[in-house]
C-alpha cells in the first residue's frame, strides 16, 4: 500500500496534466484524477506486481475521462459559430482559389523522425497548444479513441461538423510541427 501511495503521489501531476489536456477544464480534470486514484486504491491487488504501473493508471484515467466527458456533455456541446478561429486559420492557409498559399514542406522519412524522443515531446507541446474545443475533440478521437458517432452524440454535432473540426485540429498541429520541428531541422532534401 505504501508503494501505491508513493506512486500515486509521484504520478499525480502527470495524470492531472493529461486530464487537463483532454478535458480543458481544471475542475473536471481534478475530479477525473481523484476518481482514478480512488479506483487504484480500491484495487491494490491489481497494482501489486505490475511491471508498468503508469500504464495501468493511465488506462484507468482514460476511462474516468470518458465518464467526465459524458457527465459534462452539455457543457462540451459545440456551437458551430464558436470554432476557436478554425475557419480563419484555414483561410490563412489557402488562397481564395483554394490552392495552398505555401506548398507543404517535405518532412522526410517518418521512421527517422518518429524514433526521436524530442520530436514526440514537441508533438506533446503542440497538442497542448491546440485551442480548447479543437483539442478536446482531437484527443477524444486520438487518445480516448472514441468512435466518431459516439463523439457526435456526446458533443451534439453532425458528422460533417466533426470531420471539419478534426481536420482543423490536424491543420493546426501540422502548422505547429512545421514551426517548431521541421522548419528548424537542417534541410535534408
Amino acid at each position: 500500500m505504501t508503494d501505491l501511495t508513493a506512486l500515486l503521489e509521484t504520478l499525480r501531476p502527470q495524470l492531472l496534466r493529461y486530464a487537463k489536456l483532454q478535458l480543458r477544464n481544471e475542475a473536471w480534470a481534478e475530479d477525473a484524477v481523484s476518481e482514478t486514484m480512488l479506483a487504484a486504491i480500491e484495487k491494490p491487488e491489481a497494482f501489486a506486481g505490475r511491471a508498468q504501473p503508469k500504464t495501468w493508471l493511465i488506462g484507468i484515467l482514460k476511462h474516468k475521462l470518458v465518464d467526465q466527458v459524458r457527465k459534462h456533455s452539455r457543457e462540451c456541446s459545440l456551437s458551430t459559430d464558436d470554432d476557436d478561429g478554425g475557419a480563419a486559420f484555414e483561410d490563412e492557409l489557402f488562397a481564395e482559389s483554394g490552392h495552398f498559399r505555401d506548398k507543404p514542406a517535405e518532412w522526410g522519412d517518418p521512421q527517422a523522425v518518429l524514433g526521436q524522443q524530442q520530436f514526440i515531446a514537441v508533438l506533446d507541446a503542440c497538442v497542448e497548444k491546440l485551442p480548447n474545443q479543437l483539442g478536446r475533440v482531437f484527443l477524444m478521437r486520438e487518445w480516448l479513441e472514441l468512435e466518431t458517432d459516439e463523439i457526435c452524440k456526446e458533443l451534439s454535432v453532425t458528422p460533417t461538423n466533426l470531420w471539419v473540426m478534426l481536420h482543423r485540429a490536424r491543420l493546426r498541429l501540422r502548422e505547429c510541427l512545421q514551426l517548431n520541428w521541421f522548419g528548424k531541422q537542417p534541410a535534408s532534401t
Partner: protein
Amino acid sequence: MLLRRTCRQAALLITSRRERELGWADRVALRLHMMVCKACPRFEGQIKLMEQAMGRWRSYVERD
C-alpha cells in the same frame, strides 16, 4: 465540377478519409487531383506521419 476539387477541398478529404469511407465521386476526384497536384501529395505525407506520430504519443503518455 463533379470531379474537380481544390487543394482546400482535397485536404479535407485526405484528413477525413480515416474517419469515414469517401463516396465514389470524392474518391475519383481526389485521385485525379493527386495526379496533377504537387502540394497535396506532400500534405498527405505529412498527415500520415502525424497519424503515426500520435501512435507514438499514446505510448509516450503511458511510459514511465
